[in-house]
């Protein structure tokens, strides 16, 4: 296997793992953010009523 190919495959593997790992973290924390955003907006619209 050529060296250039091996280097790119290592970079690809690292980038893909980073993508899925960060996406997982964002999914968990994002869900909490989403709940907070909606509860804040719910409270605000109740107050205005």
């Amino acid at each position, binding site marked *: 296997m050529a060296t250039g190919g091996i280097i790119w495959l290592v970079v690809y593997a690292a980038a893909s793992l980073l993508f899925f790992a960060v996406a997982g973290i964002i999914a968990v924390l*994002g*869900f909490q953010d989403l709940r907070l955003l909606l509860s804040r907006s719910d409270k605000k619209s109740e107050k205005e009523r």
Partner: protein
Amino acid sequence: MNFYLLDWLILFFYLAFSVFIGVRAKKYVENVEGYFVAGRKVRVALGSATLIATEIGIVTFMYMGELGYVTGFSCFFLGIIGFLAYMVIGKTGFVVQGLRRLRVITIPEFYELRYSRMVRFIGGIILFLGGVLNMGVFLKFDGIFLSQTMGFADAGAALGRVPVLMSLAHTLGMNEATMILFLIMTIMLLIVIAYTVLGGMFSVVITDFTQFVVLTFGMFVATIFVLMRVSFGEVAAVVTRELGDAGVNPFANPRFGWVFFLWMLIGAITTSALWQPAASKSLASESPEVGRKVFLFTGLTLAGRYMIPMFWGVAAIAVFGPKLDTMTAMPKLLATSVPSGFLGLMVAGMLAASMSTYSAYMLAWSSVATRDIIGPVRRRPLSGHGTITVSRIISGFIGLFLLVFGLWYQIPATAFQYIAITGAMYTAGAFGCVAAGLYWKKANVVGAYASIVMGALAPVAFLVLEGLKRSLPQGLLFLVDVNVSGLLSFFLAALGMVVGSLLTQKSHPPIRLPQLEERSK
């Protein structure tokens, strides 16, 4: 047909779920800020999820996959460039923090604050036209992807059971496969229009988040099945055999080279921060600091989001050889590698990716049309309610345009570079205006006009002259080199801003913004 009942059920429930949560978000819209920027309450993780979902669509998978199939590993450097660009923005807050601090909703709004109402109007028109035309090709890519992955070999038999559709297909002059595609695309667009129009940015954020989760899962599923079909060793061997040095070294690849590298590096920093659909995600954030961090987190995923579909394309060379149609090779690989059930999940993920892109783009371009094109020409400003209503109507028209334009438009041969050059038409000038407006005290209205016009010159020349390539004199041939044209647009825009401003400082003194002055103290 590769798609079976289970796949259709998954797809149906996913689309129904999207409509349900998107439409429910309508109750959160109270005013203009609520509609266009979700009340500026979005935090880092949610902002990152929605930005990633916006930037990934079937169209990006398609052109990344095509690049992988045509250039092998050498296109992976684009992922590294994208990663670096987002890291620069995420670390420094370049442009995004300044715009968020000024509490603008659209980028042309900044033009009025810093230059003049007319600059906002012209900038708004160029941004709207560039954006909508750029988006016009998306549906076509979606169509190719879906027809390959879902497979429409038995489309005639399926359609034959519905005589009304059969006669509609004949009336419109479509074959059965195109008719089924047309129906899927129409349903998808109607769903996107419905929730975008009703809930604005709230709907976009909520649906983007669920779409982010589904599309990530879809990408994971596709990657696992591709890796089960071809090994790293096979892929590396076939790239070396078929493409040689051009398959691993971007500077040895005739499609890339140093000019392309520089264009992409500059373009990545500018486009990322100034493309309205992306910028609106940082403008919707809770604070300027959160806006910056949204880019930092998104940047961490960027190399992967480029390289994952590129690798699918490279793997397609190992499976099918290099002689397939470049656009269909990658989706064909997915269709033949992912089994039924998982295929439904993957297609739902890909549709999720497209829906999040369409909704964000529709909202972004309709907000520009309403606030920066219609708003400035009206004697009496639109009320909050009027602004939202006009924006909703424009969103509907954009959807209609996409459907008509997308189905009949012929995709140019080099999709990635074509999208980049139409994007440069706007971003080069916008970069000159916004970056100089935020960081250079001498930037004035003349410089802004010069930057917008000169930034659009090279891309327009390319698009016009490309068809006349053969009759051009030798000395002008550089204008039809897409890479030279793209890079040139940024230099010309910067030159226009610097020369235009410096020559007219006395006749057109620059406007100072108190918020920016405060920041620099």
